[in-house]
């Protein structure tokens, strides 16, 4: 079993090697990096390339961690105990008839090996991360109602992503293989663009990338990322406009989202226009 990328996704050779190492070592792979570096997408690509199903936990700050494994439908069970389960075939005595499995539960109970994605884990509180330690380390969790351990039939390929909004706890990090995806270089970005726009003028891409990386270097509060670049290129291509300098670009609102950033950008552009008029 070897992961080698798909036609829709640009896979850096380095990342390919790393994914395969994590698979061989059966370790959860924790991906960090800016938004727009394709962390989440990678999990989907692994599942597609290896022909495996994928289970996804989208982390929220309100999540407790237990529901990622299972919850018990207590209301239904109470109802059945009081009024009978009728024709449904559910047995009130049997806990499993009332268990609703979360993504981790489903991944562990599946007959075939699956990809398990824990998305944006940094949004959770640190005790949730602690609850997940057993899941990562031993591929198992406990059903508290029965005091029973559920162990994965087939250890899933675990991919975890983090935007580093909050720091992850050390024990959590220790159980993972950690990889920081650096923002794509110009050359890599070219490859990414060509995967999305097959027929785009070479000149437009070159000019747009120059401007894009210059803007990124200006230290905006929210620097434009890959997604913004792709949308912007789409708009440029559609309108047939060609940007000139970083201070004078069409559809700036696609690249810069924060009003503070847009103001800072405009101000710089105006200052430039002013100083240059001095010379004439």
């Amino acid at each position: 079993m070897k992961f080698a990328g798909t036609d829709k996704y640009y896979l850096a050779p380095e990342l390919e090697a790393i994914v395969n190492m994590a698979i061989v070592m059966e370790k959860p792979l924790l991906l960090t990096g800016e938004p727009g570096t394709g962390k989440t997408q990678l999990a989907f690509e692994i599942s597609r390339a290896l022909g495996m199903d994928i289970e996804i936990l989208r982390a929220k700050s309100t999540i407790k961690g237990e529901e990622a494994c299972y919850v018990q439908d207590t209301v239904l069970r109470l109802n059945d105990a009081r009024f009978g389960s009728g024709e449904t075939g559910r047995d009130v005595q049997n806990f499993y008839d009332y268990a609703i499995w979360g993504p981790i539960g489903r991944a562990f109970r599946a007959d075939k090996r699956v990809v398990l994605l824990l998305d944006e884990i940094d949004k959770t509180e640190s005790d949730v991360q602690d609850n997940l330690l057993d899941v990562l380390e031993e591929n198992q969790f406990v059903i508290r109602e029965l005091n029973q351990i559920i162990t994965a039939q087939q250890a899933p390929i675990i991919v975890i992503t983090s935007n580093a909004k909050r720091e992850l706890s050390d024990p959590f990090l220790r159980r993972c293989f950690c990889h920081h995806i650096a923002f794509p270089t110009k050359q890599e970005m070219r490859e990414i663009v060509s995967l999305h726009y097959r027929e785009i003028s070479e000149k437009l891409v070159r000019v747009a990338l120059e401007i894009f990386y210059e803007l990124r270097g200006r230290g905006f509060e929210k620097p434009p990322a890959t997604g913004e670049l792709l949308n912007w290129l789409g708009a440029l291509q559609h309108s047939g406009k060609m940007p000139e300098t970083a201070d004078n670009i069409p559809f700036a609102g696609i690249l810069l989202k924060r009003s503070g950033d847009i103001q800072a950008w405009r101000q710089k552009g105006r200052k430039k226009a002013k100083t240059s008029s001095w010379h004439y």
Partner: protein
Amino acid sequence: MTAVEELRRGDAPAGLPFVDFVYMLRDFGIMTGMKEVLDFFEGLEKGLAGNLDELFLFARLVFVKKPEHLDRFERAFSLFFYDIDLPRVAEGDPELIHTKQFREWLEKAMRDGTIPRGAMWNMSREELIKKFWETVKEQMEGHHGGNRWVGTGGSSPFGHSGMAQKGIRVHGQGGNRMAMKVVGDRRYIDYDSANTLRGDNIRQVLATLKRMVPVGAENDLDLDETIRSTCNNGGDIDLVFKRQELDRIKLVLLIDNGGTSMMPYVNVTRLLFSKVKDRFKDSEIYYFHNTIYDVVYKDAMRTKPLKLDKLLGYNEETRVFILGDASMAPEELMYSYGSISFDLEDRVPSLERLQNIAEKFKFCVWLNPILKEEWDQTYGAWTLNKIRGVFHMEDLTLRGVKSAVDYMRRKAVK
């Protein structure tokens, strides 16, 4: 018996290759534990590191847990496997001349005669710095400096075929160039925790600052949890309390925006603290020049004064951060009427004012953009150390902000 089994049994790992490398990582501040070491050797046995490039990727995957350690890892790797000792700073950084690597290189170059004696006087600093990087690059391209694993001499301690039979192939073709290139790029240098703050490592610092959430006593009734717990308890009331949100806490940031040396840090710090604002009742920023007298200013131009006494009237739980290089002429800090501004006439020496602030606010940290290692050597070392005697001081780096936050958290728990 395989190497891993040997290691598990606790035998002396003398025969194991790369154990030295693990210790070198520790020297570089990457704390590796037994678990990582075992993982590493297990991977080697599984053949995951067939060449030096793979070894580089795999070792990084196993040992590096945080982005701030990536650059250190690359430097350690380059030292161990290529015998090239990279300095902490990036190319183009004038700080280079303070590094050990530069000094050693210069000494050696003078001994060998590649640079004539007296070069320090004849050549400009820039020329020397350029020469240093040229030498490093030559080494990296030719691997000539390395006699450890890679190179033409083959003096590797594990003989021609590298280690064991699943060993590292160092003389074969291909698969040994990428790591060198990656190391040479220094892509992660800005993430290093010993770096001064700038755009790229702001996210990491922010993540740290968010941990500054105040901790209160457990005296708020948690209704949901109480109901649940009561049900579990068979109907007997079981009260559950949660920590009280201390939302009355203020954040005050005092910024020295006087000298040009401070300019690069003012905006970055302001931005940083504006992002953690929502964790506090409110936050305020005041400015001063070099040190604090009887007023601070509400605006960056320092035209709207606020009496220091007023600031001292704030709740003592207020979290106070002072940003400044603490470097000035001694009389500015120690004398009556010491200020260099004409309009500031304060009979009380500034140091005393600082002491007042430190006594009033127990959660107070001075952040200094000058790196900790240089505190004793900077031109303002005298005043810096005086101020250090008053405030808990950290440098304005990721590790500095981390310890500052830890310091406040520790105090809050007490």
